[in-house]
């Protein structure tokens, strides 16, 4: 089997959600490489793990997701970030995309919705 092409970092302050995203990913092209509890941890782990994909919560302590998206994109303009947030208003989604996120998935989500969003993120056919 071919090695995964994409390295996934999951960022969310909820342990339950982090593990759920890790478990739900069923795309062989995506390898889970680590998880972070807030934006500050995500930046630290980025240097160590060099993820190519990130799922990013927005409302988190210490450093929120919007700030972390901006900083990750500054460091790596090619990184693909899927924001996964409960903040369901359009302005929040637009703001995340303007900061450099590649997609937005609203919580709550099903496993299928998550995989569809990840598939779109890597540009794979369903």
């Amino acid at each position, binding site marked *: 089997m071919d090695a995964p092409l994409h390295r996934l970092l999951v960022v969310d302050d909820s342990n339950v959600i982090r593990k759920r995203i890790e478990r739900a990913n069923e795309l062989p092209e995506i390898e889970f490489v680590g998880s972070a509890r807030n934006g500050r941890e995500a930046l630290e782990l980025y240097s160590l793990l060099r993820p190519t994909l990130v799922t990013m919560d927005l*409302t988190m302590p210490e450093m929120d997701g919007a700030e972390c998206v901006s900083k990750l994109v500054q460091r790596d303009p090619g990184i693909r970030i899927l924001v996964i947030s409960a903040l*369901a208003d359009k302005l929040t989604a637009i703001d995340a995309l303007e900061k450099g996120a590649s997609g937005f998935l609203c919580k709550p989500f099903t496993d299928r919705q998550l995989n569809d969003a990840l598939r779109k993120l890597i540009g794979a056919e369903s």
Partner: protein
Amino acid sequence: MTLETEVGVFVSGVLNYFGTTVQQAAQCGTPHLALGERPEMSDYTGVIQVSGKRTGLVAFTAPKSMLSVMLMRMQETDMSHENLCDLVGEIANTLSGNARRDFGHQFQISVPEVVSGRGGTLAYPAQGRPIVIPIEWRNYHARLIVCLQ
């Protein structure tokens, strides 16, 4: 928005949350004002402080047994106190965050705080009148408490 519409936003959020996350429908009972007494709190309560155009709080309170079954339905095997706190906070966060679709961008929400143990009280706004939305799921009983000024 009228009070009825506002309550409807949260009822829709609850139904969507259970239908999506644990894929088993919940039912909401008749919402009511908690007049003269503080709403009863269950084993675990997730609390979100609201600021911006509206101020107050949104709290989801549920028994340990219900949260444990919800974790199982999410394929989670760790039923520790930490994970139960995590889940109840995440539910409160999701229901509050989803409400921004209708309340707008100025409906600012905090990160969740979690209170464990029955008999606690929440710091309600002085002029706020808590509205209690009863939730029934698989014979378990939870409540969503919304108190906004």
